[in-house]
């Protein structure tokens, strides 16, 4: 059963970096960040490509963001997506997940789709909300934190991870939406010829007019959203820190383990 697959990808600043707050306190400083494909979305992309390879079909990689997201879309093309779509939302921070999801849902409506995939969460904002919102907005059955997907006649069987290692298995009719968990598969590396080919493939751009909007600020929302401010985290508590040469730290750690009774000698 050939499937039209749409995988929603997000480009995020590498979360291992250190971050500074912008002077206006409403965003981080973005001038010297390096960006990458969100971790869970790598697994969502791989799952989409595997479903296509097994069942036939087509994968559209969809994202929203400024021009800088294009290398991420080319990476998706090189890894097996057939088409790349960039919604030209030029807000570098795009903090309001509700607005992002409404724009994504409106864009997905313009595409043929049987199955929409997202990562379970983004490692930058950690909302775990885009997939569920899109499912609700489009009226699609959905399942979250998915670790296994099997295509059955006319539908899907999926395993969803819960806390403590439990899993719930669900069956879903199509069309549907799934949010894919980290580690659901082993993402592939793009072969060099595919990278070369992807560099020449066109990227489709979606502007507000294509969705019947006069601008990205005119997305109809049932609320107003404002960033009050960003700050370094207020430490709840903090460890007593041990610094200095490794040999000294080793002595201190050994002494500590003895003091606390974890080592007899």
């Amino acid at each position, binding site marked *: 059963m050939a499937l039209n697959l749409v995988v929603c990808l997000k480009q995020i600043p590498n979360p291992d970096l250190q971050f500074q707050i912008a002077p206006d306190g409403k965003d981080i400083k973005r001038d010297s960040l390096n960006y990458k494909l969100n971790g869970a979305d790598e697994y969502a992309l791989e799952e989409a490509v595997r479903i296509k390879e097994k069942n036939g079909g087509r994968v559209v990689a969809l994202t929203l963001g400024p021009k800088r997201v294009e290398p991420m879309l080319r990476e998706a093309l090189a890894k097996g997506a057939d088409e790349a779509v960039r919604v030209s939302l030029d807000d570098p921070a795009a903090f309001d997940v509700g607005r992002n999801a409404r724009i994504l849902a409106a864009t997905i409506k313009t595409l043929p789709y049987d199955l929409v995939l997202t990562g379970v969460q983004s490692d930058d904002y950690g909302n775990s909300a885009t997939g569920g919102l899109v499912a609700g907005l489009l009226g699609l059955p959905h399942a979250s934190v998915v670790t296994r997907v099997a295509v059955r006649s006319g539908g899907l069987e999926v395993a969803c991870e819960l806390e403590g290692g439990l899993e719930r298995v669900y069956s879903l009719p199509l069309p549907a939406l799934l949010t894919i968990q980290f580690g659901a598969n082993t993402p592939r590396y793009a072969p060099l010829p595919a990278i070369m080919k992807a560099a020449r493939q066109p990227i489709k751009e979606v502007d507000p007019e294509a969705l019947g909007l006069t601008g990205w600020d005119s997305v109809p929302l049932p609320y107003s959203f404002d960033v*009050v401010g960003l700050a370094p985290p207020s430490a709840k508590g903090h460890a007593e820190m041990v610094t200095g040469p490794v040999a000294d730290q080793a002595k201190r750690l050994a002494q500590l383990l003895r003091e*606390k009774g974890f080592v007899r000698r």
Partner: protein
Amino acid sequence: MAGGVLIIAEHLDGRVAPSTLELIAAAGRLPIDRHTVQLAVLGHRVQEIARHLSGYAVDVLLADDPALAEYTGGAYVQAVRSLIESARPRIVLIAHTAQGYDLGPALAGAMDLPLVTNCLALTLDGDRLVALRRILNEKVQMEVEIRSSRPIVVTMRPGATPPSGTGRGMMSVTEVPVSIDPTAPRATFVRTERPEVTDIDLSSADVIVSAGRGIQKKENLALVEAFAKAIGGVVGASRPLTDMEWLPKTRQVGQSGKTVRPKLYVACGISGAMQHLAGMKDAGLIIAINTDPTAPIFEVAHYGFTANVLELLPAVVKELKGG
């Protein structure tokens, strides 16, 4: 009853999730009449859970329907929708658990409601809800403000609010009918799978030494194992290591793995993502080793060592043997 808080309880196998008691406490901190806080228990034959929760000084709404016997996003969204339409709350509180972030966003999408997720704290000031969140690997905190005339769906991070205690008086349990359209396309529950236990049980260990991405290579696990052996501990891991299959899934500490409370927990090269901290923050003594002094693991650790874990572990094993 309009204008209050509607809490959605979470339960599994007849047990209430600890996060539900945290939601009751979080609702209690908002500047609203406590009689406008209601807690919804959804399920089938869950009267006992409803009665139990009414002992936490909240009025309980019981939505009993065979379609709610096992959690499914579709049926829950339909049931909560009818509760919201009758209770007309200002805020719908849901835990940011695997089940909660399946439900909350889908509910907000289906009903076209405002949503803010994974919150640490809330303040309510007139029509203005301000939510405190953490972003970018816990390195930045952020306050966002939502204003709306519609109910705001909020998910709260587990562990962020101290849970509510019992003994503040039994309140009422009211059975409320909910309408669930059995023909609406939705996920249907097939079965629950439980992990087979064939490995050591981390949750009964007194001493756990956990490895994270900072150990860089699978071969370096030997250093962690040698140190664990020297202090009579067992080896655990953060999620990235079990995802890469350097260690079996049974060794994973964190929200999606084991929650542990050993006497000693040593975190080796673990930065301390929220999902990991949730599984180990209540250990008796926490020692963290990480070269990044700003890593969030140091917020829950009692002692922090900034040496490279690959150099410090062999050195401390030598100290312990020679000492």
